[in-house]
């Protein structure tokens, strides 16, 4: 077996050194009734060729995004990932290293995480960021818990602009705690009144910008209202590329910002792994969950980096820890920071501009399609449209998939109990969309409508 180096003679020599004759003796502590290997009925191992064939076969059953005009977003965005990223990320020293607990042999990981933290703080307009969370959804939930801890208030108000799966994750996190989640209805038109619901029990208001239905919102009035009432404003960003063009949550008064970072560096991977970015104000840093890297000096006085502020963490605080998180998303954070390093200030602005301009272009093309109405007044690279009331967007999407076009996500997928959302469709556009893609979509829509 190619991953197992021992030969039988190695094994015999080692058993002799241990002073036993049969390896089974090492498993003497296992209850006899649980030592029935014979009860396993599992296939035997296979060589690379066979395993590759198995995956190629499974891959062949999917319609991959590269083989279709593609307009799906709703929290996962298809961006072009430069080739250098994956090749550098695959270096064994990154790929096969552990959490950087031994800083002397982990300065690579620690330095890129320090750079990552800085980029995240800059992007979000905040003062400090951690070394990443599992994904945007769990980061969102952890942020809500953190806000409650800071304000010592129990009520978390979730905007209808929030991605429904982030909402559900947050609700689940709070389910058996002393905190309460209160979620507003889905809000494709951006009409909800959050300010009116803030009260003295409100720990935080959680909004997403751009919203789940695409809309952009000036958060300053909301931030003021939160702060006036002693609550925190927590902003979720599902598409970090938007931050190259849109005012940062920090600049609009957010207290905690979390981002799903998948858009940069990683590809879609069927939605996982993701990358949670987490940023806040300096004053809340000791309440922040997750790992943090800090700068220090070594024995010879040279700048170096270490994991720090671990007094918040589960291995020291145990049940009093601010969260149970033990891993971050190191490799995804590396992909993100590499992509952002390549883009830089100049490139991110250009990429964001390009995304927005192409979305505007698709919108204008769709306005010419009979039977479609654009719902979003403002947006970055994703917007909601609606068909006539009696039309099921899910059926439209299925019909287009049959034509080889991946045409967006029907809102009903997330809100089965909301009949008024049945005709609503979310469409995303990125730099990967060509003019030909858009024309194919428009012409297919004209056919099926």
């Amino acid at each position: 077996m190619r991953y197992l180096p021992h030969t039988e003679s190695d094994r015999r020599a080692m058993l002799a050194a241990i002073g036993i004759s049969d390896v089974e003796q090492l498993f003497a502590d296992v209850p006899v009734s649980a030592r029935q290997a014979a009860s396993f009925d599992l296939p035997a191992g296979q060589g690379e060729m066979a395993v590759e064939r198995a995956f190629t076969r499974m891959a062949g059953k999917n319609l991959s995004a590269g083989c279709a005009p593609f307009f799906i977003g709703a929290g996962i965005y298809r961006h072009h990932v430069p080739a250098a990223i994956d090749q550098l990320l695959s270096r064994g020293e990154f790929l096969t290293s552990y959490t950087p607990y031994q800083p002397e042999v982990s300065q690579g990981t620690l330095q890129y995480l320090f750079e990552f933290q800085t980029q995240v703080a800059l992007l979000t307009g905040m003062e400090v960021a951690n070394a990443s969370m599992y994904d945007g959804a769990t980061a969102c939930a952890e942020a809500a818990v953190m806000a409650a801890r800071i304000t010592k208030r129990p009520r978390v108000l979730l905007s209808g602009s929030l991605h429904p799966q982030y909402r559900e994750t947050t609700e689940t996190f709070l389910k058996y705690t002393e905190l309460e989640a209160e979620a507003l209805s889905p809000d494709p038109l951006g009409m909800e009144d959050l300010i009116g619901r803030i009260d003295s029990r409100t720990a935080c208001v959680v909004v997403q910008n751009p919203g789940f239905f695409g809309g952009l919102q000036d958060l300053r009035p909301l931030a003021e209202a939160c702060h006036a009432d002693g609550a925190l404003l927590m902003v979720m960003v599902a598409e970090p590329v938007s931050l190259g063009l849109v005012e940062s949550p920090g600049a609009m008064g957010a207290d905690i910002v979390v981002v799903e970072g998948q858009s940069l560096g990683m590809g879609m991977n069927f939605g996982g792994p993701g990358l949670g970015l987490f940023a806040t104000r300096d004053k809340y840093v000791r309440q922040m969950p997750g790992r943090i890297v800090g700068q220090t000096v070594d024995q010879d006085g040279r700048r170096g980096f270490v994991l720090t502020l671990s007094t918040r963490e589960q291995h020291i605080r145990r049940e009093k820890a601010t969260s149970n998180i033990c891993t971050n998303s190191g490799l995804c954070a590396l992909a993100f920071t590499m992509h952002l390093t390549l883009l830089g200030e100049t490139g991110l602005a250009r990429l964001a501009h390009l995304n927005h301009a192409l979305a505007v272009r698709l919108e204008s093309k769709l306005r010419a399609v009979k039977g479609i109405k654009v719902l979003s007044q403002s947006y970055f690279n994703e917007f909601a449209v609606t068909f006539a009331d009696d039309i099921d967007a899910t059926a439209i999407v299925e019909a287009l998939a049959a034509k080889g076009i991946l045409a967006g996500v029907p809102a009903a997928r997330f809100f089965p109990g909301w009949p008024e959302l049945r005709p609503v469709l979310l469409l995303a556009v990125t730099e990967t969309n060509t003019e030909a893609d858009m024309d194919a979509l428009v012409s297919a829509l004209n056919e099926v409508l």
Partner: protein
Amino acid sequence: LEEPLIFEQSSPGRDGIDLPEAPPLDLDRLGGLARKAPIGLPDLSEPQMVRHYTRLSQKNYGIDSGFYPLGSCTMKHNPRLSEKVARLPGLADLHPFQPQSTIQGALEVIDLLAFWLKGLTGMPAVAMSPAAGAHGEWCGLMAIRAYHEDHGQGHRRRVLVPESAHGTNPASAAMCGFTVDPVPANALGRVDVEAFKAKLGDDVACIMVTNPNTCGLFETEILEIAKATHEAGAFFYCDGANYNAIVGRVKISDLGIDCMHINLHKTFSTPHGGGGPGSGPTVLSDKLAPYAPLPFVVHGQNGLKLIEHAEEVEGARPFGRVKGFHGQFGVFIRALAYILSMGGDGMRQASTDAVLNANYLLARLKDVLTASFDGPCMHECLFDDRFLKDTGVSTLDFAKMLIDEGFHPMTMYFPLVVHGALLMEPTESETKETLDGFIRVVLGLAAKAKDGQVEDFKAAPRLTPRRRLDETLAARTPVLRWKPGANSAS
């Protein structure tokens, strides 16, 4: 070689990526929210970027660099085949919200991995979406709590946790609204069963046991523990961090366990990547299965079906959703590639070799280092610092000295049940020659410590990009990001 921060390598206007021309910017659709100030990101070219990350990588140590006998986290060979298949466009370039007819192969990956996890553990169900071990732990406890709530046992809020447990165990319990009641260990490094039984009661929701435990020992009285737990109306949660020792040999279901998370990145060899991403699917007993979180995959009439809402399946009582989208798919692919490569037979050999390697280290080192418990151990072996008594050398010093010899240090000062712990997990990937080289060095260092060469230890490591770092300074005066002019390089 020094490598500056990216912020110190910027020249505004440099391109690292060439983008196509964009149509003119139309501000109408931005709702007046166009960004006004620059962000402050550095501009680098592609050659700079490639060199930067190459050089950073050279300051890291991975399994590929050398022996990594960490302990408490399995650091074994990460096959490159897994990396290759995970990048097949038909698997990598898929969106989670594509119509289900276009992602049947992706659902098959999830379903096939679930088949293996169930087959290996003997458990009837598995929640696939947790993102990491601790997340899976919490997922299991949430299912337990949901079961109790559903059965009028909402008052069961106490969780029994051995003192040697990973810190995530109590933290996860707290997140479910549970209180933690510690259970002492006995002199053999196992759960003190009598003390444990005395703590059972009708307010106990579950026990959380790591098996093999954090001392690298199999809980010999596990069946007794399970029986007492079940008789008390509680569930038996097992922390699966050490599953590598028994995978393919022992079925979890045969141990009376109701629920266990599996670290795919440990047992099934997906890369640790400097701290993630991981994946922590959680196997569940029949009783707990209906409470598994959304989403999950079922076999439907038109192939596989991804269930995202409870209403779609009769009898499903999911406790909620634990993360966005459908789980750590990229990690699933890698774990499944490993599993298909190893097969049932290979996995059994792997756990056998892992345990053999650990016992070989134990046997060869125990006359010089002080073994905390008699063997046989499972996949890791535990020493404490009695052998360093009066030498002036600490566990930390000893470990740092190994770095200059080309080895990654073992886990230090954990578990807490022994003093100055040195926990070593060689894994099944290592050759006898590598172990022999390591043993030679460790014995040599022990002799050196006893010989009074303490200064050498205090000065270690010498050959690394950085020598010992001042962690107190870092925590006392946190510098958590670069700021212009504030982070001098030396």
